[in-house]
Every structure is written in structure tokens, then in C-alpha cells.
């Protein structure tokens, strides 16, 4: 059996095993171990396995993963999520579809002080969905808005996904962060526009019954109370983003600094007790272990693929086929979206980037822009059936038996379509991502 065949079999086997429900980390590790054994021998396989668990993530870049997780959890443990939503809902109260837009806005603000989308997805499922339903929104639509806008967390800095991309592609993490700002705002605006348009054009999709909408149903919140709700979040964002762009700490350190700031705010607001502090820390450990174990496995997996020569062969084939960049680019995006239907975002990057980075490099592509479109494409996959993972997270947090996964997918559909159009915009207008970096580059 040739080495390339082994590589291909391993790839197929890993997909099958993951699909059948074996833990992703275990599946990738097992397949890679056996693969390297087949290509070389068991001693090499063991050595690579041991070094993947002991050294592959042993750097400060990966070391900050728990700090980003704990920052998100601290922020969630405070009432800042509800406060942000309240203020946004107050601002948009006279607008049709205002609560939906408020959810998007609150998510965007929240994204600027957390580095993952799990935190935002779980908190706004609890805060925004019940409010929207009470004000006459359809449950699937309300859930869809939360699911869709939670992807802002990965696009607006800080972002854990960008850190990992930066490591894999050897690109500046700071540049990636900066590049995400304008597209993040554009996406939030597109989501809002989509909600507003739908609530006027197809109100039956958005609201239960024709008459029900949320105009004027809110009590007036006095300015002082509004400020009290806004200021803590404002301070946190100021510290995190101000710290990064003021040069006080690096983007990777932002997780630690943000966690500390969120902790202090939570303590000052008497929302973080010793018990919550400990619970959050334990929870952080579990999430970190789950993420990092997959990371270790994926690194071994990509080493196995490299040894098999499969990525090289695919690269050669692509070159000999003389495909132009457009075909490769859109083929790549399609594969990423497809993978996003059944893998989580980290695994996708770890599995596909070893294949595509060498190929893409040959075209002199701007890697910051490339990272951005990769992240957007991954997040689209997480929203689409049959296995969009974001949808399952939201469903788990909703805990309601009265909504099927399929109806959540349908509710999310407008957001998914919006996001696909947004992906095209980011693909065709690299300047959107690069404008704040003062760079101009385009592939067409």
C-alpha cells in the first residue's frame, strides 16, 4: 500500500469515526497513530504521539486558551450580558424587529470583550430569547437570531480562533484582530438590516400573528440607569481593546488581562462570589481540556498527513491541473463550509490548513484576509444542516423540548443566507479587512 493511500484511508477513517460519535480527539489520535505506524513504524508513531501530547501545545500562545475561556465565563457570570441587551433593546425600542436588532448589537458589543462564541451563544439564549418570545416573536426566529449573531464573537477581536489561525499560518495575530473589526461591524449591520427587512416584508416569519410587535411595550429606563448598565461593559472593552492597541499587552495576553478586569468588575458589582469564582475556574479547566486535547490530536493528524505525502500530492495535482485561483478559492470555501457541517471550528482549521496553506502561498495571497474568509466560512458551516454545531449548543442551552433542531435551522436560515452573502463581500473586497491595517491588496 502506498503512503498516499494510507493517508487517504486515514482521512476517510477519521471522518467516519468522528461521524459515528467517537470523541474527536480520540478519533484523530488513534487514526494518526495507526497511520504513522503504517507509513513508518511503531517506534516513530509512538515518538510522534508522545511529542504531540507533551510539546505540540507547550507554548504561551496555546497557554492563553484557558485565559480566554475564563474571561468569557467571568463576563457571563456577571449581569453584563443582560445589561447590554437591556440598553440595546431600549435604544431600538421604536424599531420594528427592534429586539432582534438589539440581540445582534448586544452580541457585537459582547464579542469585543470575549474571545469565544460559546459564551455569547449560551448567555443570549437565556437573556434574549425569553424576552423576544414574550414580545410576540416566533421562537425559531428568536433562537435563529441568537445563533446567527453569536458568530460575531469569533470575528470581532479578541478571538481565540484568530489566535489559532495566526499560529498555524504564521501570521500576525494582532493584524488578524485588527482585520476583523470592520467586517465584524459590517456583519452586525447586515444581520440588523436582515431582521428589519424581514419584520416588515414577511412579518409572519418573525412574529406570531400579524398584530404583535414590540413597538412601545417597554418601560422608560431613566438615563442614569442606562449609564449604570453601559459603563461596566464600556470599561471592560476599553481595557481589553485599549490594552492591545495601546501596546500595554499583546493580543495573546489580552485573555488574561480581560479575565482579571472582568473578575474585578464582577466583584465590585457583588456578582462574583468565592463559589462562582471557583465554579468558573473548574469549568474553564474542563473546556480547556476538551479544546486542547483536540488540538494535540489534530497536530498529530496533520503530521501524519504530511508524512503520507497526501497534501503534497494534492498540491501537485492542483498545480498540474492548472486551475486558476478563483476555482481553488471557491473550492476551498465550499469544502470549509461543508466540513463546518460536521466538525467544530478548531478541528476544521487544523485539518484543512496543512493542505491549503502551501497551495495558497504559491499565489501570493494575503494571509490575514485568507484567515478572515476561512473563519467566516467555518462559521457558516456551523449554522447549516445537517449538523451545525452552534445550533446544538443553543438547543442545549435552551433546554426546551418544544423546539426541534430542524426548526432552529429554519429560524437561523435568514441569518445563514445573510452570512453567505457577507462571505462573498469579504472575498471580493479584501480592502474591507485590510483597510485598518493600511494595506491594499486584491486577488482580482
Amino acid at each position, binding site marked *: 500500500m502506498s503512503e498516499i493511500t494510507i493517508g487517504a484511508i486515514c482521512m476517510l477513517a477519521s471522518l467516519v469515526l*468522528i461521524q*459515528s*460519535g467517537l470523541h474527536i480527539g480520540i478519533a484523530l489520535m488513534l487514526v494518526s497513530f495507526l497511520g504513522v505506524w503504517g507509513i513508518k513504524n511503531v517506534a516513530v508513531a509512538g515518538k510522534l504521539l*508522545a511529542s504531540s501530547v507533551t510539546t505540540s501545545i*507547550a507554548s*504561551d500562545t496555546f497557554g492563553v486558551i484557558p*485565559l480566554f475561556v475564563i474571561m468569557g465565563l467571568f463576563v457571563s457570570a456577571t449581569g453584563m*450580558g443582560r445589561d447590554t441587551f437591556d440598553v440595546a433593546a431600549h435604544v431600538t425600542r421604536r424599531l420594528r424587529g427592534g429586539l432582534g436588532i438589539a440581540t445582534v448589537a448586544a452580541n457585537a458589543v459582547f464579542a469585543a470583550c470575549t474571545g469565544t462564541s460559546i459564551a455569547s451563544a449560551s448567555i443570549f439564549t437565556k437573556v434574549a430569547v425569553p424576552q423576544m418570545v414574550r414580545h410576540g416573536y416566533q421562537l425559531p426566529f428568536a433562537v435563529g437570531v441568537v445563533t446567527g449573531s453569536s458568530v460575531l464573537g469569533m470575528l470581532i477581536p479578541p478571538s481565540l480562533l484568530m489566535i489559532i489561525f495566526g499560529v498555524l499560518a504564521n501570521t500576525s495575530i494582532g493584524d488578524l484582530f485588527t482585520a476583523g473589526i470592520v467586517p465584524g461591524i459590517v456583519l452586525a449591520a447586515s444581520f440588523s438590516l436582515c431582521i428589519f427587512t424581514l419584520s416588515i416584508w414577511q412579518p409572519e416569519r418573525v412574529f406570531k400573528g400579524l398584530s404583535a410587535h414590540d413597538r412601545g411595550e417597554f418601560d422608560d429606563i431613566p438615563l442614569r440607569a442606562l449609564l449604570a448598565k453601559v459603563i461596566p461593559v464600556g470599561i471592560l472593552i476599553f481595557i481589553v481593546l485599549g490594552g492591545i492597541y495601546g501596546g500595554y499587552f499583546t493580543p495573546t495576553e489580552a485573555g488574561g488581562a480581560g479575565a482579571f478586569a472582568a473578575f474585578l468588575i464582577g466583584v465590585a458589582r457583588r456578582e462574583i462570589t468565592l463559589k462562582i469564582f471557583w465554579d468558573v475556574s473548574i469549568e474553564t479547566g*474542563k473546556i480547556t481540556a476538551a479544546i486542547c486535547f483536540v488540538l494535540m490530536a489534530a497536530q498529530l493528524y496533520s503530521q501524519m498527513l504530511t508524512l503520507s505525502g497526501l497534501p503534497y500530492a494534492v498540491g501537485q495535482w492542483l498545480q498540474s491541473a492548472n486551475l486558476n485561483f478563483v476555482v481553488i478559492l471557491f473550492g476551498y470555501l465550499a469544502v470549509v463550509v461543508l466540513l463546518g457541517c460536521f466538525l467544530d471550528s478548531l478541528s476544521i482549521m487544523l485539518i484543512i490548513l496543512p493542505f491549503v496553506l502551501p497551495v495558497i502561498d504559491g499565489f501570493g495571497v494575503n494571509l490575514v484576509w485568507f484567515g478572515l474568509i476561512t473563519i467566516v466560512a467555518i462559521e457558516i458551516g456551523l449554522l447549516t444542516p445537517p449538523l451545525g454545531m452552534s445550533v446544538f449548543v443553543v438547543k442545549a442551552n435552551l433546554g426546551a423540548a418544544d423546539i426541534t433542531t430542524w426548526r432552529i435551522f429554519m429560524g437561523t436560515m435568514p441569518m445563514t443566507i445573510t452570512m453567505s452573502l457577507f462571505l462573498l463581500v469579504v472575498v471580493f473586497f479584501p480592502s474591507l479587512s485590510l483597510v485598518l491595517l493600511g494595506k491594499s491588496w486584491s486577488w482580482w
Partner: protein
Amino acid sequence: MTDFKDNERGEGVPARAHSSPSGFGWLTVGLSTAGTLLIIAMAVGVNADILGRELINRPVPGVTEFLGLAIVAVVFLQIADTSREERHISNDLIVSWIAERHPRLAYAIYGIFHLIGAAMFLIIVWFVVPIFTENYQGGYYKGTAGYIQIPVWPFVGTVLVGAAAAAVQYVLLALREFGRAKGTPDV
């Protein structure tokens, strides 16, 4: 980074362990507690470094090296407890579809998956032992000589202990699933 099986949690407040630990469970909880303390140490380290550097011009030496070593230890200190609560990232759409129709078959499949997990962690232990002895006997460290030196072996040691505990944990989980497949009530 999705699909952590976090079930019902209050707004923003993480869920506690689903089942109360017993026997071996206390070991995994002990390891996980050590991992939690390590995370707090990492957070404190980063902030001490930032504040020391920016306020009094005295960075804390070795924080970068510590973060790199500690993250590996955190993962393996937590891995057994993460397995115990079945919080690994997985995609069980197909098996849950089977579970609705043939629950016993699904239990058996889960049992086999857990055995595969146990085998994988045993393989890890087997191949990490030489790395541990190499680091221990060689006295290897991270950091700058004469400035700050962090020995590597304790961190590799946690990999061994954690992986061994995870293997045992997976065997226990497998036994439970096989018991369910046979239709006997949970022990």
C-alpha cells in the same frame, strides 16, 4: 469549539459535576482541582507580568515558559474528570439516532468507544514514560540559565498521571455502558 455537552446551566453560572464522585472519582476530582489551581496561577502570572512590566518596570521572569508548560499539565490534570462527565467534544448525532430505536445497541457502541478511549490513553502512557525518564534524569528545564529555571519533568509527570487516570476512567465508563446494554441497572 462548540458542542460541549453543557446541559442546563443557570444564566452564566457553570454547571457543577453531574454525579457525586465516589472512590476513584475522588482521585479525578483531586487532579482536576490541581488543574484548576494551575489555571488560576496562570492568570495571576500573566497579570503580574503585565502590571509589573507596565507599572514598576519589573516584568515577572519565566511567565511565558510557565504558560507553555502549564497548559499541557492543565489538560492532563483535567482530562480524567472531563471524561468522567463525558464532556469531550464529539458528534453523536448518529448514535443518538440509534439510541432512540435500539437503546441497547447504542449503549454497546458507547461501551466500545470508551474502550477505544482507554486504549488510546494507555498508548499515550506507554510512549510518554521514556520522555519522562529522559527529562527527569537529564534535569532538563525551561527558561534562562542563572535567571529562572523551571524543571520540565513535573509537567511531563502530570501527563503520565492524568493519562493513566483517564484510561481507568474510560474503562469504568465502558463497564457502565456494557451493564446498561445488558439491561442491568447502574452501579
